[in-house]
């Protein structure tokens, strides 16, 4: 399956939800849509699912020499942003109903269900009503419902929301398992640490626009080399004094003895260290490169500045 999205736009009344967004997803990829609330991620997902159509631009879904303007239902597994199942029915009844609607036989559905319930450690609760489960466990059931019929493409809108860190890790494992089964995955998320672990490609969005796109390496390159030096010293140092010694650097104060110095590509690490050693006694120096979370925040800040300008 291949998905090519070209310059799609979508307006809701006077609000431009999506503006000239393009991207491509290849078969077997995990693709992440990133952005703050209202960035346009769910609007794109709804267009991919076929619930709404783009006002302009195009969506081309290719699968086994057939082409569509949205993902056909038979190829799709979907976890919507607004989600819920039947609270007064058991896990098994909920999943069996949705699986049978997808065209699975009862036997096949039960077989797949047993596998995924085992993965999410819910096997012994299959006959409990959904309303008896915690919100996190309900979310797991909903994730299972999206993949029970082994779709070619799985679209998950905020799969990590409402989950604790342990269950977020389980979802990462779950998504990797889907990839291993040959499924293509599109997900939207805020949890950068999770996305960094598993996404092959990603698209950073803000106010309906694409800001950064590509692999993690591509995005790091687009954002420019971002490094930071974390220093710890023996005695307390006044932040203003430190800023006077290194006027060209942006400094984050973590405590009176620990500081984060943000470096640009042009700045010389040796020169900075020499300057510091001449003034204070250092106990620890650590060089770090920016992670996706930092890149995201930087990109968002730059985007806001551009928009204001």
């Amino acid at each position, binding site marked *: 399956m291949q998905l090519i999205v070209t310059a799609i736009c979508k307006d809701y009344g006077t609000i431009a939800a999506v503006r000239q967004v393009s991207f491509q997803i290849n078969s077997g990829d995990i693709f992440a849509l990133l952005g703050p609330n209202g960035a346009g991620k769910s609007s794109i997902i709804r267009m991919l699912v076929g*619930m709404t159509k783009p006002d302009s631009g195009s969506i081309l879904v290719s699968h086994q020499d057939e082409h569509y303007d949205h993902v056909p*239902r038979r190829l799709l597994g979907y976890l*919507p942003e607004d989600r*819920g*199942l*039947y609270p007064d029915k058991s896990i098994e009844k909920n999943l069996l109903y949705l699986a049978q*609607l997808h065209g699975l036989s009862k036997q096949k559905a039960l077989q797949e269900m047993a596998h995924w319930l085992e993965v999410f450690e819910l096997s012994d609760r299959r006959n409990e009503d959904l309303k008896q489960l915690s919100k996190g466990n309900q979310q797991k059931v*909903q994730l299972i419902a999206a993949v029970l019929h082994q779709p070619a493409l799985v679209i998950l809108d905020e799969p990590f929301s409402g989950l604790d860190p342990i269950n977020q890790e389980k979802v990462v494992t779950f998504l990797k398992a889907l990839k291993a089964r040959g499924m293509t995955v599109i997900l939207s998320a805020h949890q950068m640490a999770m996305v960094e672990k598993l996404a092959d490609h990603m698209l950073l969005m803000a106010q309906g626009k694409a800001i950064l796109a590509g692999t993690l390496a591509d995005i790091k390159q687009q954002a420019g080399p971002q490094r930071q030096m974390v220093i710890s010293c023996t005695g307390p140092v006044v932040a203003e004094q430190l800023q006077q010694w290194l006027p060209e650097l942006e400094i984050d104060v973590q405590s009176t003895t620990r500081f984060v110095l943000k470096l640009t590509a042009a700045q010389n690490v040796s020169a900075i260290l020499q300057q510091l050693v001449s003034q204070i006694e250092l106990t620890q120096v650590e060089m770090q490169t920016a992670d996706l979370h930092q890149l995201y925040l930087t990109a968002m800040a730059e985007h806001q500045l551009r928009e204001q300008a």
Partner: protein
Amino acid sequence: MISRQSMIVAKWEFLRFFKWKQQLISYLLMMAVMAAVALWSYFTDESRKVYRIAVPAEFSISNTEQFQFQRPTIALDEQLAQLKADESWHGVITLNTTGSDQHSVVLHTLAAKKWQQQLETELADYFRQQYATKLQLTPAQLAQLQQPLTIDYAYLDENFKGKDTPEKMIALGVLILLFIGLSTAFGQVLLSITGEKQQRVTEQLYAIVTPQQWMDGKVLGHSLSAMKAMLTSALVMLLVFIVVSVVVREDGVNLGWLNWGVVAWLVPFALLGVLLSACFMGAIAASIDDPNTSGKGAVMMITWLPMLFTYLVIDSPTGTAMMILSWLPLTSFAAMPVKMAMVDLPWWQPALSLILLVAAVWWMRRVAGRIFLRGMQMYGKEPSWGQIVGWALSNKAD
């Protein structure tokens, strides 16, 4: 015509509201209540007792099974004292002569009782006899005077079956059953569709089935529930009829009055009527975002109007109003069966009416599917009536 997915949705919806244990318990409770009412009526029935009534000496009234008329020789005050003290008498009658031949009767009792109505009838008969004797009327003349006027109706329209035929009872029964069925569907459709919207299941389902398949399944499932309610109610009605025939009247079971030809026509009209109404209810429910704040739910009650309109013109089955109702697809499911039960019609009339009804059901299901899709795309905003009408009249594909 109906997809496999729609059938799965229909089965799910039907079973979701099919609580056979609760239903069985409610039927048992209903029977227990009926039995309690019957027992209460039996034990409190005053007509089975014998009442002693003191009458003036000149009264020559004969005793009946229920009343013993006695002419005590003691004074009236004493009679009333006995009545008050130890119930020697259930009642004491005195006579006031107001004019030459005019009498007024006073019945003294401790309090008002049900048997007094029966006594009133007995006294009226007695005085009528007295007046007849005074007027020197023969028993035959008196009987003639007492006979009510009977009017036989002769209808020149050969197709009109008559005013109070068993078929009319069948038609009335169908109207009642339709009312029961649509009331069942009303609650379930509203609860099911708005409930799913509030539980956020709709977007998930949209990714699996088309809005039309979803709506078809809903309509079919709830129509089956309505039909189940109608069938069980019909069986209860039949059971009551059998119990009354066998136990109360001691006549045995006679279902000869059931006109199976009429019944055979009633069934498809009733089924299509339920489907049409369920489609309409589905369309309205699909436009409701929150049933607690929306006033649109009450509009679903419009589906009861065909039965009401038909009932209002049931005694004029050949009139213009009934003709219009029996052809209009939105009302024909209630009116045509009633008309057929009371008037002999050429076969093509109900057949054509049925075809029009099928077309209306087809159109209404498409409308319901469209409204569901468009309503869902509004993401929590409730559509206006103008938008709903626009969607209903548009032919835009889903």
